[in-house]
């Protein structure tokens, strides 16, 4: 399906799009709807309009699964950098799954230290509270193997690609496991340092060339060539 893409700048009038409460990329001003950021306006043939910002930040949302970097800890909680303006909180009680009649270890901060990554879900976030995290769900918890690479949150969509085409290409060509968190942190698990390095370079390339066409093919070629050179 062909589509008509153009770059819009802040203040530009956009027709046929309704601003939602969550997203601040477009807003109503008087009788007009305008963009508030630089972004790509994609007018599809069937009349569907999509606006994706080029720059921007990650705003936490309840239910999002994010990867956070532990930056410090308080008396009974850790503080995590989740690549957003708000510092996330993970409580010791939650991390150890403490229920009634059980207790967290005496030295909880030995088990999760500053500089380590955690995969967690946001359970609560609003205008007056910082995001509260939980690891009590399937697949969540401290990241113990592989590596984490942090990209710009607006480029996450490109790393996944249309209907997952880019991430599928990455999986197929490198054989690694990827987890792309909405806040722009990507967990790569390869079991091989060379493959991991290739995957990281590929993702960095995707981030840099996010708004170019034919990227998936180029990435595929790059990974195949690189694997030949490194012999993995």
């Amino acid at each position, binding site marked *: 399906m062909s589509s008509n893409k153009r770059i819009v*700048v*802040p203040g530009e009038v956009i027709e046929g799009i309704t601003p939602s409460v969550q997203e601040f990329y477009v807003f109503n001003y008087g009788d007009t709807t305008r963009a508030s950021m*630089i972004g790509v306006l994609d007018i599809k043939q069937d009349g569907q309009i999509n606006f994706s910002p080029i*720059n921007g930040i990650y705003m936490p949302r309840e239910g999002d699964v994010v990867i956070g970097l532990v930056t410090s800890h308080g008396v009974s909680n850790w503080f995590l950098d989740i690549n957003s303006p*708000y510092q996330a909180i993970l409580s010791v009680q939650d991390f150890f799954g403490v229920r009634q009649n059980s207790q967290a270890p005496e030295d909880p901060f030995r088990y999760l230290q500053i500089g380590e990554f955690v995969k967690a879900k946001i359970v609560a976030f609003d*205008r007056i509270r910082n995001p509260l995290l939980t690891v009590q769900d399937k697949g969540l918890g401290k990241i113990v193997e592989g590596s984490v690479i942090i990209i710009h949150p*607006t480029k996450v969509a490109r790393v996944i690609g249309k209907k997952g085409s880019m991430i599928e290409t990455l999986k197929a060509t490198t054989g690694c496991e990827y987890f792309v968190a909405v806040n722009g942190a990507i967990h790569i698990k390869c079991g091989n340092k060379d493959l991991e390095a290739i995957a990281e370079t590929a993702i960095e390339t995707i981030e840099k060339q996010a708004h170019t*066409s034919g990227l998936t093919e180029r990435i595929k070629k790059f990974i195949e060539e690189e694997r030949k050179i490194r012999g993995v």
Partner: protein
Amino acid sequence: MMVRPEKFIDGSGRRVDGRLPNELRPIKMQIGLLKNANGSALVEYGLTKVIAAVYGPRESQKFVSLPDRASLRVRYHMAPFSTEERKNPVPTRREIELSKVLRESLEPIVMTNYFPRTTIDVFVEVLQSDGGTRTVAATAASLALADAGIPIKALFGGVAIGKVDGVLVVDINEVEDMYGDADMPIIAAPDLSLVTLYQLNGVLSKDEFQEAFDMAINAITRIVNMEKETLKSSYQVENKEGDLEK
């Protein structure tokens, strides 16, 4: 010290630097030149050069945090080497005041209400001064905010109108500012018909005042169009670079 020219407008109607009264200085704009900042821009109006860096929204320190919106901090500063004589780098009364005035001119445009309890920092550093630094600073801040991906209601720009030898002139330089009869800096977002800074130093008649305002809005519209071009072309260029590697 600059010498006062005998005439500000010569026989053919041209100004001290050869411009016509309604002509802007040559304008240059560049974005994304600082790695550490979320957004940055370098803007030149003739010899006046200003760099702007934008950080945020980021976590507030407790004492500046606001419960319902992001706090906006603006620092206007002139580099010690920006003037003919060395400028003491300590912020002067004038710089503190201009920081406040610029902050107030950004507040109606930056959509701070989406980011409660955070801080947005805007730093503008005058690298070379030749009149109209506050208006160049506004234009640079506009581009840097857009580059940082901070939601703003519209792009904005600034220009100063002056009066020399009884003639209204657009985008005055240092000499015209120093010895002219009036200096009227304006910051506006023409897309929204919104004026956010309006100052006047000197004396203008009521008619002159109206004419000067119209000249300013006209000039700002031209400047904002240049901003749009700059933003659009910097992303298109990246497009082409990517395609070359095919």
